[in-house]
């Protein structure tokens, strides 16, 4: 039961127990076990530094392959970019000139080198359709999706962690079954259907919330929350289910441990045992998992943004794919992949920092 699968239109599940936290404590890592002192200040040791160095060194080839993969997307997308840019213009000379201007007449490896050079200096090229720098489009869309992601992760933790704790503490009761039912429900509901149903309930029947559109929190905080609460819930719901399962299994493990028995034996109240001793230790893997999910959220909002017509990353990329706007597709995928890889790294680092058993 401790394992969960992410079923989300945004991402297919790698569904082994905490699959992306690949850190397995090797012989050198395990020192004396100092359990239950999650509050101690983290210290870096040689073994940890080695691990971090290897982990960082892995980033380079991964990013290299990501850039090749993303660049070959351009070759995969249908249609001739020069024709798309020419629009109504059908004059061969003009098309030839566009080809030359955007280096589309050069061999593909040469185009790749120019593209990477541009990306490294912060230049993602220009949207072929609307002639706006891709950097500006990303700069507009990223905060929108980031706001959704942060709200979604708050919702996910707010529902998932308490539900997981309650179901572990009250194992085998109606509470436990209810929480488990919620988890299966959250993982199995397609998020675009949930979105449509929420619009139907809250916008059409009750008329409480706007069905679509987006308001910036800097213009109107209330309006902004109203326009993003439904999509954020849709995104957060599936993650809440995953967090709930992991919290539950981590809590069940911790509740059987010696130090929890000791805490009970010395007469602490059940409330203090659960909140102070068990929870703090059970939650560390869950928090790193949350960092990973934040990464999938940033990229996984594709359909949700489509349904609520929110001008974030997901909508940007779907529109770009349909408009054959290569530069935008490449830029957005590259940025999401980089964010995802970085969050992965942070999660790995956090995992060693908060886990006393990995500190020698």
């Amino acid at each position: 039961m401790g394992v969960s699968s992410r079923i989300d239109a945004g991402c297919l599940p790698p569904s082994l127990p905490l699959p992306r936290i690949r850190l397995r404590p090797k012989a050198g890592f395990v020192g004396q076990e100092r359990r239950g002192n999650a509050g101690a200040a983290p210290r870096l040791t040689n073994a940890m530094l080695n691990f971090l160095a290897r982990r960082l060194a892995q980033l380079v080839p991964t990013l290299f392959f990501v850039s090749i993969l993303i660049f070959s997307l351009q070759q995969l997308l249908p249609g001739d970019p020069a024709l798309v840019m020419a629009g109504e213009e059908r004059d061969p000379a003009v098309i030839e000139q566009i080809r030359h201007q955007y280096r589309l007449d050069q061999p593909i490896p040469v185009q790749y080198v120019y593209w990477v050079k541009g990306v490294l200096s912060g230049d993602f090229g220009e949207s072929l359709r609307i002639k706006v720098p891709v950097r500006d489009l990303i700069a507009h869309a990223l905060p929108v999706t980031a706001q959704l992601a942060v709200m979604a992760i708050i919702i996910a933790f707010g529902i998932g962690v308490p539900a997981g704790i309650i179901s572990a503490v009250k194992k085998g009761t109606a509470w436990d079954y209810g929480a488990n039912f919620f988890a299966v429900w959250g993982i199995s509901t397609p998020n675009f259907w949930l979105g449509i149903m929420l619009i139907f309930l809250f916008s059409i029947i009750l008329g409480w919330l706007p069905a679509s559109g987006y308001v910036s929190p800097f213009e109107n905080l209330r309006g902004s929350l109203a326009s993003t609460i439904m999509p954020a819930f849709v995104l957060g719901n599936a993650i809440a289910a995953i967090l709930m399962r992991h919290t539950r299994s981590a809590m069940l493990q911790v509740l059987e441990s010696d130090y929890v028995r000791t805490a009970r034996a010395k007469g602490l109240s059940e409330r203090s045992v659960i909140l102070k001793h068990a929870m703090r230790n059970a939650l560390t893997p869950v928090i790193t998992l949350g960092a990973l999910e934040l990464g999938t959220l940033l990229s996984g909002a594709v359909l949700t943004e489509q349904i609520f017509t929110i001008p974030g990353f997901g909508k940007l990329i779907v529109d770009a794919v349909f408009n054959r706007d290569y530069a935008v597709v490449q830029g957005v995928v590259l940025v999401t992949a980089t964010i995802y890889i970085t969050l992965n790294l942070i999660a790995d680092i956090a995992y060693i920092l908060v886990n006393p058993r990995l500190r020698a």
Partner: protein
Amino acid sequence: MTDATINAASLAGSQDELESPARRALRRLFKRKGAVAGLIVLSIFLLLAIFAPLIAPFDPVATSWSLVRKPPSALHWFGTDELGRDVLARVIYGTRASLLAGVISVSIALSVGVPLGLISGYRGGFIDALISRITDAMLACPFLILAIALAAFLGPSLGNAMIAIGVTATPIFVRLTRGQVMSVKVEDYVEAARAMGNPRWRIALFHILPNIMPALLVQATLSVAAAIIAEAALSFLGLGQQPPSPSWGSMLNAAQRFLTNAPWMAIWPGLAIFLVVLSLNLVGDGLRDALDPRER
């Protein structure tokens, strides 16, 4: 597993101890209420898909201008859509597209990913590093976005959506197979097989592969669920099943436009996706517990 055989040998065979691992897994699977419920619902949908022409009350593509967006009635249980087609018939026929897409795309992912993972995990070295980095790169790109880009490249059709989803799901199986192979290849029985002079491919296919099957089976079941959602998502965007053929995803797309006047168009296809995906997840969870040798 070894315990069971030793016990069986020493006790000289009580029926219960002699059953094969597969049988034992099945027996344990059928003990789980959730998994059994999931299997029942899946069988119902499978029957619906196979016998759709016999079960569906109407032709799923027959339009009627006098029946546009009629609410559910005794004649049309689930109501009618924007072209006067029977929603129940379309949901029943849509089962075909969804189940096919789920099974075929995961088959593609398995048939590409498992061999690559076997090679990567068993050979190690440069090939392993190359395959692993490519896998990492693919997993670093948002799943649905890769699938959308591939499907857009191949052209919108159900077959191409399946290929796009299958290719995008492949790295998951590469990584899973590789990890499993790495942990299994140091086992004594692999060492024994090597000592007996078996060639590498034989060890990989006949000694390692059967032992990592349980993990692959569980992941495949859960992936079918994810693939069905992905197919519905692609069809929702117009990149999957093409009209007028029914698919749950494209029905939801049409339904969103008529949500105010005809909410029944949105409820049934979504509920169908939910039920199938839920059942697959329940069966997958049940399988995982049933196949876990540590659990008794």
